[in-house]
């Protein structure tokens, strides 16, 4: 049962989306468009989690000097990038009918765009360095430094005036909607962690294969 885990994760994601779309009432003001909450918000949260993995793995690499941590950081950065791109796209699709615009340069949107480009830059740097050890030593400090933008993105709606609303809390979201959001956040978390794990495994195997080839 090699694919059992994939079937469980995909099945849970399908269930969570089904629950959100058909068993959760729409918003009084927005109508069905509000269902975008169950993909936009989980993507954003899990991109932060992925970037935290990059941050923690980069620190551990500098302490332990093991390639294990470098491979983990690289895998998490890729997944985080995809999730941030997804956050931006889904947010844009949500913004058009509710705010009236696809995009506006408010602090939340701008800092999130910067977040995306920082991690694309991180991956680009990795792509430019051929030597494995050198790549790991160069990208670890960068992986720590650019994480500083994550709290800035999170706090941007509180620090500055934005078009984007501040964070919702269980008090501002109806319980049945909060349940759907939690289900989908867990589904996204499982997907993100699985992708990080598979990407990490791939990297480990590639290095092993390269070492065998050399010797």
């Amino acid at each position, binding site marked *: 049962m090699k694919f059992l885990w994939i079937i469980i994760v995909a099945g849970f994601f399908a269930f969570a989306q089904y629950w959100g779309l058909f068993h959760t009432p*729409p918003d009084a003001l*927005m109508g069905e468009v509000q269902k975008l909450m169950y993909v936009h918000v989980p993507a954003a949260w899990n991109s932060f989690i992925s970037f935290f993995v990059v941050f923690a793995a980069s620190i551990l690499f500098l302490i332990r000097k093991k390639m294990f941590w470098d491979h983990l950081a690289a895998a998490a950065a890729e997944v985080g990038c995809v999730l941030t791109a997804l956050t931006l796209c889904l947010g844009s699709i949500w913004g058009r009918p509710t705010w009236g615009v696809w995009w506006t340069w408010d602090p939340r949107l701008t800092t999130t765009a910067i977040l995306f480009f920082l991690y694309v830059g991180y991956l680009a740097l990795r792509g430019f360095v051929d030597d494995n050890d050198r790549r790991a030593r160069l990208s670890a400090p960068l992986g720590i430094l650019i994480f500083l933008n994550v709290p800035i993105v999170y706090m941007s709606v509180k620090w*500055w005036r934005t*078009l984007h609303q501040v964070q919702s*809390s269980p008090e501002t979201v109806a319980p*049945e909607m909060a349940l759907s959001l939690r289900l989908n956040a867990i589904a996204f978390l499982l997907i993100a962690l699985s992708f990080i794990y598979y990407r990490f495994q791939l990297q480990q195997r590639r290095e092993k294969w390269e070492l065998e080839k050399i010797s």
Partner: protein
Amino acid sequence: MNRIGLIVSIAVVLGALGFLIFGQLEKNLVYFLTPSELLAKGEAAVDQPLRLGGEVKKDSVVWDAGRRAVHFLLTDGQKDVFVSSETTPPQMFQEEMGVVVEGKLLDDGHFEADRLMVKHSNEYHPPKEGEKPSFLYQDLIKKRATD
């Protein structure tokens, strides 16, 4: 040499971050002005492209369906600015809703908006029993079609 480069780059990064966090950027780089701030600027604000944010004052929305135009009072609780717009408003546009408009203040004191954006709150709840989401602009068009 390498060590000096490292120290310089760390200093630059920390300096830039310090500037971003403590440099009072919000004073120069605000996303939108409130009506009070706009009116306090007086003549200096006239004819400048800017964003204005606040709430649509209750009972102030007037539709001109023939010209597809709307005007309303934008308020921050203290001062009001008369805003007119000829763009199609987002469906959530309604009284007591947060809005951000882009445009400029004319010298007769009214704000001509060429973009009207709705600022949603962080509250989400399903419609109550028998309640239906109301979309002012769409309802207006339907009403005109049946008149």
